């Protein structure tokens, strides 16, 4: 059959479209996944067919989902405070309460050397993402500081880590380049301390000196929503 004459470009195109339609057998699927990682021309073919095929949904009329759908999504993504915070923050990754005690120990004695009493209200989050970086942040609005403890990971070569506070409907606010070291502190502006539970902290990788125009330019390496402890 003339269609089966070897034609690598056409074979690749068919491989791509079978993948997009969901028709690939397991061997072809593995090949596609492998080539998507390493072969940008193939990735472009796949993207091209995804763009073309999505036109088949043009005629599908929008249907508003019921309210409970959004509630279910929010409940899944942002569990309410009634879920024990310790479960949320640590148990996923097998952290024990010891990490917390350690974090508190590292953060606070040096923050407030003359006052051994812990602040009334402490906020914390664990920043995670697709990168290997994981950072624990403990916010102390009264002391105006954030204690950061890097659990794992580091800045890519030639880059620095910059910390951002994200509030609803606002551009990310830079909290500065994170100093080198496993346990460090950065200043927490008073205005942010007052709305601590609305903050999501995020860490991006930036050129040395930090993002040049006060807005993040690098990829988000880790992020976490702040909760009251």
């Amino acid at each position, binding site marked *: *059959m003339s*269609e*089966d004459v070897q034609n690598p470009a056409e074979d690749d*195109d*068919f491989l791509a479209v079978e993948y*997009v*339609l*969901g*028709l690939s057998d*397991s061997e072809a*699927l593995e090949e*596609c*996944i492998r*080539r*998507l*990682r*390493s*072969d*940008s021309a*193939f*990735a*472009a073919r*796949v*993207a*091209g*067919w*995804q*763009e*073309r095929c*999505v*036109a*088949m*949904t*043009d*005629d*599908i*009329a*929008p*249907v*508003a*989902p019921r309210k*409970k*759908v*959004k509630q*279910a*999504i929010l409940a*899944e*993504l*942002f569990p309410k405070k009634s879920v024990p915070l310790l479960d949320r923050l640590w148990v996923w990754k097998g952290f024990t309460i010891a990490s917390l005690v350690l974090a508190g120990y590292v953060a606070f004695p040096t923050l407030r050397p003359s006052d051994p009493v812990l602040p009334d209200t402490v906020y914390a989050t664990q920043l995670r993402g*697709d990168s290997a970086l994981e950072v624990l942040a403990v916010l102390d609005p009264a002391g105006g500081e954030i204690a950061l403890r890097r659990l794992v990971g580091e800045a890519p070569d030639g880059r620095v880590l910059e910390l951002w506070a*994200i509030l*609803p*409907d606002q551009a*990310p606010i830079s909290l500065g380049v994170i100093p080198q070291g496993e346990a460090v502190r950065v200043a927490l502006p008073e205005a942010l301390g007052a709305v601590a539970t609305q903050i*999501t902290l995020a860490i991006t990788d930036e050129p040395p000196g930090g993002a040049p125009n006060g807005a*993040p330019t690098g*990829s*988000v390496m880790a*992020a*976490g929503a702040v909760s009251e402890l």
Partner: protein
Amino acid sequence: MDRTEIENLIARVALKDRAAFDLLYERVSAKLFGVCLRVLNKRAAAEDAVQDTFVKIWNNADRYRANGLSPMTWLITIARNTSIDRLRARRKGHMDLNTPGFELVAPDPSPEQYAVASSEAARLSGCLDTLEADRGSAIRGAYLDGQSYADLAAKFNVPLNTMRTWLRRGLIALRECMSQ
């Protein structure tokens, strides 16, 4: 739907901005739910699928830029693939479809190629209709109903290999029509 607006919302969701996520939900949930409903044809299953879809969007928004797709294509493809996976989940040996951007994609997608693809895409529906009716229906069946080669072969009463050759010819014709 404004491409730039959706793109900005995805970028903010990548920074874990919940307000942006709310807004994105407001803008696209009806379209995505429509797609889930079209594939799954049952309200409860489609509700589960659209819920999964938005959880994936929240968790993977930072990977959106890597795949070079237009924002609505990315969102609809997640909804479509999630729905097809649910549809097929009961079948033995089913492997989940991959969602664009969830795999590491080779860098350096050329923007021109995508621009061509999206202008071509507008012609898809017209071109599907110019194909022999069965071939157009087979392509739609795979994309919107999650039909496998075996399903399609049974539907059109041809051997499986014939089905594959047939679809391949259809897709070559489709591509030619769309690039004209």
